């Protein structure tokens, strides 16, 4: 019997992780991506390997997903991670009041934390605001976004997955009985249109998910929400520095190579393919970032950019849950052969893929367990060195 064929649309974090998972479960996998790996939201992610601390008070489902996946990624893909931890620092009365629910939330979500005196925190990170009142050490980390995705893609490729990049989905093929059974694609490098047949199509296009479901007359409640990030040309800290308060604008500063990156904001947008950087948001990042690390005022901007998060599950902007969901469109729209994975965060890419592969396997009556938790990933470089 031939292997079932899954076509995954999108080679961002969820697409490459789902390709890896389905390839391990015996699927014949083809990933199509209109640009190169990670050219959309995933590549432009802030790069915080979340401990879950950010969500421990208001969104504990996301917080637990984060701490569990954080620990798994440290094991399976250490070559793309700076596992140096993070600090939540309190600078005013409001921050101090957030301390109590923060401790309780972290305990409820099994996020290890250590309370530090301002002196202890400054000893670890001499460049943070010396006026801090309190600090908590938690197991945040940072990662290299493209290499994280490439590690999953390389591992998928080693198990037979094919990656067709610069290949854009133009329409979904229907079987005449209301089910999706393939994708019509434009190969941009040769300008040719090709039809790919599939036993299952996985829509892993994140913020763009609605554009794909629309092709089949289905829908998905995703709210694309861009945010601005600004990179400065000095590495002031070794750890992720978070403001000890409910999630807000510009309240995370991450080290990356010889830079720090301040993020982010939250706004609405019409055209997802080109989202301009808002200069007001760039100024806001400087103000907010300098509250955490005063030296940022004297640093030079190295890069300004925007990433468009796919938020789901209602709620607007900051109040939206950061968890993810896999939609079986047979259940939501009576369209078989198509599932959509969206929402979530970079940190939870593996769990998103596990859930999606579970749904795909269940729909197809395939009984294969997920093994990605314990499967070390290949070097990101092997994505480029392996034959496709």
């Amino acid at each position, binding site marked *: 019997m031939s292997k079932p064929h899954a076509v995954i649309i999108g080679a961002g974090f969820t697409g490459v992780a789902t390709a890896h998972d389905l390839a391990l479960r015996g699927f014949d996998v083809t990933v199509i991506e209109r640009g*190169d790996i990670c*050219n959309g939201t995933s590549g432009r992610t802030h790069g915080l390997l979340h401990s879950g601390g950010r969500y421990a008070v208001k969104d504990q489902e996301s917080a637990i997903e984060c701490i569990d996946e954080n620990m798994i990624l440290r094991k399976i893909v250490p070559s*793309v991670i700076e*596992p140096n931890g993070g600090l939540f620092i309190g600078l005013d009365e409001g921050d101090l009041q957030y301390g109590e629910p923060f401790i309780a939330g972290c305990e409820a979500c099994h996020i290890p934390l250590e309370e530090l005196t301002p002196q202890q925190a400054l000893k670890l990170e001499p460049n943070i605001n010396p006026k801090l009142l309190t600090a908590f050490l938690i197991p945040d980390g940072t990662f290299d*976004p493209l290499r994280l995705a490439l590690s999953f893609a390389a591992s998928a490729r080693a198990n037979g997955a094919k990656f067709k990049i610069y290949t854009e989905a133009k329409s979904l093929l229907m079987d005449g009985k209301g089910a999706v059974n393939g994708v019509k694609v434009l190969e*941009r490098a040769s*300008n040719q249109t090709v039809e790919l047949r599939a036993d299952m199509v996985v829509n892993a296009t994140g913020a763009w998910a609605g554009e794909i479901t629309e092709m089949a007359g289905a829908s998905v409640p995703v709210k694309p929400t861009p945010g601005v990030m600004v990179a400065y040309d000095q590495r002031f800290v*070794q750890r992720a520095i978070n403001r000890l308060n409910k999630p807000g604008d510009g309240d995370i500063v991450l080290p990356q190579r010889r830079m720090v990156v301040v993020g982010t904001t939250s706004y609405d947008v019409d055209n997802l393919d080109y989202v301009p950087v808002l200069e007001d948001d760039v100024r806001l990042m400087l103000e907010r970032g300098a509250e955490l690390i005063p*030296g940022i005022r004297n640093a030079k901007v190295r890069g300004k950019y925007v990433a468009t998060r796919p938020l789901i599950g209602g709620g607007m902007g900051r109040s939206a849950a950061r968890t993810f969901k896999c939609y079986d469109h047979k259940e939501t729209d009576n369209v078989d052969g198509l599932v959509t994975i969206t929402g979530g965060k970079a940190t939870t890419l593996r769990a998103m893929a596990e859930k999606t592969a579970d749904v795909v396997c269940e729909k197809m009556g395939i009984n294969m367990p997920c093994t990605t938790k314990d499967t070390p990933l290949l070097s990101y470089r092997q994505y480029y060195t392996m034959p496709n």
Partner: protein
Amino acid sequence: MSEKWNITLKVSRQKQGETPHFDEYKVEVNPDEYVLDAVERVWAFMDRSVCFRHACHHSTCGACGMRVNNVEKLTCITYIRDVTHDGGTLKVEPLRNFPVVSDLVVDMGSLYSRLELVGARSVLPAPEAEIENPPAKWSEEDGQYIRLADCIECGLCISACPSAATSSDYLGPAVLAGAQANGLKRNPELLSIVDGEDGVWRCHSAFECTAVCPSFVDPARRIMNLRTQIVKERVVGLFRKA
């Protein structure tokens, strides 16, 4: 209001089997945007067939290297203001010394397999990251941290290197820099790889690699240092044989 410039973006185009030519696009830009923003705008609003590589948009991933007005640049951090003027032209081409996949996209497989060959590390302990401009204050515990290596494997150094242009087998600056960071003393198996005509001795000390490196790796200095390491290992080897 932000400043607006009208520029002509000349994009090198090459689809499979074609010889390369330039297509011109008139674009309105903010000069404080980056070259990559202008290219992405052409794709989003004017010509969906343009192929280019990009991911992080802030110089940490190394995907968006191109030749901008004949010089290798990481386009996501290259301000338009720094490479043209209002009414001016901006020429973007793919990196040299790699096969072109399509338009501005090249196949850098040779670079990545050579980096694997010398075991270039992607993460390393902070003291080995050789930070030349450490932050104003430096914690005494910094030694225990793990750092992503400075090299973002963008290929600019290979494209700019005159020696790489004459020999496709030359390991190239980024690869030799990776071997240097590992050290021959700790990794004696590297000696036979880097001590040869396609290794350090192919370098003609043009220092173009260091001039274009966007990530402070300084490959030229590292190649010179690797030569010193090789000579040292050879001398030590003589005594070992005796």
